[in-house]
């Protein structure tokens, strides 16, 4: 049972929320929609759920026109980024709600709710009111409510974004386990996120969305290794990929008075207006390196992010240890140019270290 969309467009005001979006989702697979905020992720999920009607385009599920089926008959489930539950019901009643709506036998409901509670680790919380739970627990309840339905399509709209760091890590791990247990082989799982790391960890098929447009579709690894454009490179890396305006001539990359030897995959590029892309993790501190000035140093977790500047070129370097720097300190860095990407003047991928070429 495939979920197929053709040229979905939605333009409620003067901006496209969805712009000619097409996809073909197959059952039993996990799809990750990666995009920045306001890129149209939620709109897309709501359109699939039936809460929004696109201005044009069509969605088919199992060969049937999905747009003609009202939300309440679509058998989809959705988890919102806000922790949405029914505040007037307790945990058990919340999870039982969709089953009661289907008029299922009470004993079966009890059994299914208990199963769902177990799978999200909330056994013993049945009689609590929603307001008494923490954010993470509330989100688990809404996950349990969407699991219990055995929906054919499970939509998760940035389910972890409003949780604190630790809980996010923990729930992400649990999600992965749930998903890999093969929720059911006939479920289509659609997970939207702004976080590239989450995308890579979930390791599903990725759809990169920006301003309502699909920029690239492919397995997570492919998106990571061969982003087809500057935009995708920005969206699929956190911190965003460093983009450096450089000249490549005669096997040398030159920018800001720095001259490094071009690796094989970049050496044949000769066109003008090339931009070099380099991940923040592919730059390292090195005493024999090139001198940059520290603009900002932030420590996040066990990482240090250095915002550096030299002339007009600004870059971000992430270092896997906690280091203290002051603003205007001078640091010396080296570029791992063999991992550099090249994008041509109109932003398309020209060469990647993983061999992917545009077109």
């Amino acid at each position, binding site marked *: 049972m495939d979920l197929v969309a053709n040229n979905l467009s939605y333009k409620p005001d003067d901006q496209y929320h969805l712009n000619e979006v097409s996809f073909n989702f197959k059952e039993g697979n996990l799809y990750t929609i990666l995009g920045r905020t306001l890129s149209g992720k939620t709109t897309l999920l*709501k359109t699939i*759920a*039936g*809460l929004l009607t696109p201005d044009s385009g069509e969605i088919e599920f199992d060969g049937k026109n999905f747009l003609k089926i*009202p*939300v*309440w*008959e*679509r058998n*989809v*489930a*959705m988890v*919102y980024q*806000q922790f*949405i*539950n*029914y*505040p*007037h019901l307790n945990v058990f009643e919340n999870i039982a*709600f*969709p089953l009661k*709506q*289907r008029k299922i036998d009470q004993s079966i409901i009890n059994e299914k709710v208990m199963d769902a509670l177990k799978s999200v680790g909330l056994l013993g919380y049945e009689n609590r009111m*929603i*307001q008494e739970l923490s954010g993470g627990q509330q989100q688990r309840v*809404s996950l349990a*409510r969407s699991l219990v*339905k055995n929906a054919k399509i499970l939509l998760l709209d940035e389910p972890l974004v409003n949780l604190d760091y630790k809980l996010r890590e923990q729930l992400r791990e649990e999600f992965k386990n749930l998903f890999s247990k093969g929720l059911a082989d006939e479920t289509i799982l659609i997970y939207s996120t702004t976080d590239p790391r989450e995308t890579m960890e979930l390791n599903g098929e990725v759809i990169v969305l920006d301003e309502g447009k699909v920029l690239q579709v492919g397995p997570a690894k492919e998106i990571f290794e061969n982003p087809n454009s500057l935009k995708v490179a920005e969206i699929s890396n956190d911190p965003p990929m460093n983009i450096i305006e450089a000249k490549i001539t005669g096997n040398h990359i030159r920018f800001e008075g720095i001259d490094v030897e071009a690796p094989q995959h970049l050496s044949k590029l000769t066109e003008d207006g090339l931009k070099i892309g380099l991940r923040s993790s592919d730059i390292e501190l090195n005493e024999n390196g090139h001198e940059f000035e520290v603009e900002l140093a932030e420590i996040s977790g066990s990482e240090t992010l250095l915002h550096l500047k030299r002339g007009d070129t600004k870059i971000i370097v992430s270092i896997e240890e906690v280091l203290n720097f002051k603003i205007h300190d001078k640091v010396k860095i080296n570029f791992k140019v063999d991992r550099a990407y090249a994008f041509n003047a109109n932003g398309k991928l020209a060469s990647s270290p993983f061999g992917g070429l545009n077109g």
Partner: protein
Amino acid sequence: MDKLYIFLKYFFIVVWTVFVVAPFLWALTTSFKDFQSVNGGVTYIPWVDFEPNLEGWKVLIKSPAKGGVDIIEPYFNSMFVTCTASLISIILGTLSAYALSRYTFKAGFVKNNDITFFFISQRIMPPIVLSIPFFLFLSSINLLDSLTGLIVVYIVLLMPIAVWIMVDFFNKVPREIDETALIDGCNPYQAFLKVVLPNSIPGLIVAGMFCIIFGWIDFFFAFILTFTEVQLLPVKIVALNSSVTPWWSLSASALVSVAPLIIVAFIVERYLSKGNLSGAIK
């Protein structure tokens, strides 16, 4: 610092309580006084300052033939009109408020906010402006001087209150809750009844209370739109007045007319303090 705070707190509570309760105490004692005790200088304490009697109260239930005023029928009339009009206003008002909060309407330049304002504008207009149209309208459909006619008019007056309070309340209930209900298999009506409404009980209570209060205390329309067939309590109380002001029976009837509101307030207060107005939704 703490002691000062506690002192000030109780000081203000006491002052405020005296301020609120004193008129009621005054009315209560007055209702047991006779002509002499009211007009012959200030008296406060029964059996000490004056000899209490039940004349003021008896007049209220005696039939006019025996020199009484009989407020029992107007009392029940008032209750019936107020409750019916409030109930209908709450039902209609809640439905319209939900529609205004969740769906987008557009007819030319008229949008949701304009519709909401139209409802509220019914209350902004001075009642006197509406009196003649109402009078002509009711007389044209033969409902002048009838309970049904009053109910119709009160719905016009009370529904804006319900709409106004409930639109605001529904706007605070996240839309995603309705959407989740739809996704969980409810059609829009079920989503409203099973999910949105149970989460709006505090709002419903507040709106209901306002409707009851405004319906119960209305004098103007009850005065203009009824004559002899039906009478409502406020009109009857005013009619008590004669060449000699009967302070005792006026006080008694004032207490009787305020009583239902006080009872309602006490019942409702429990619900309101349980989860404060916005507490239902985190």
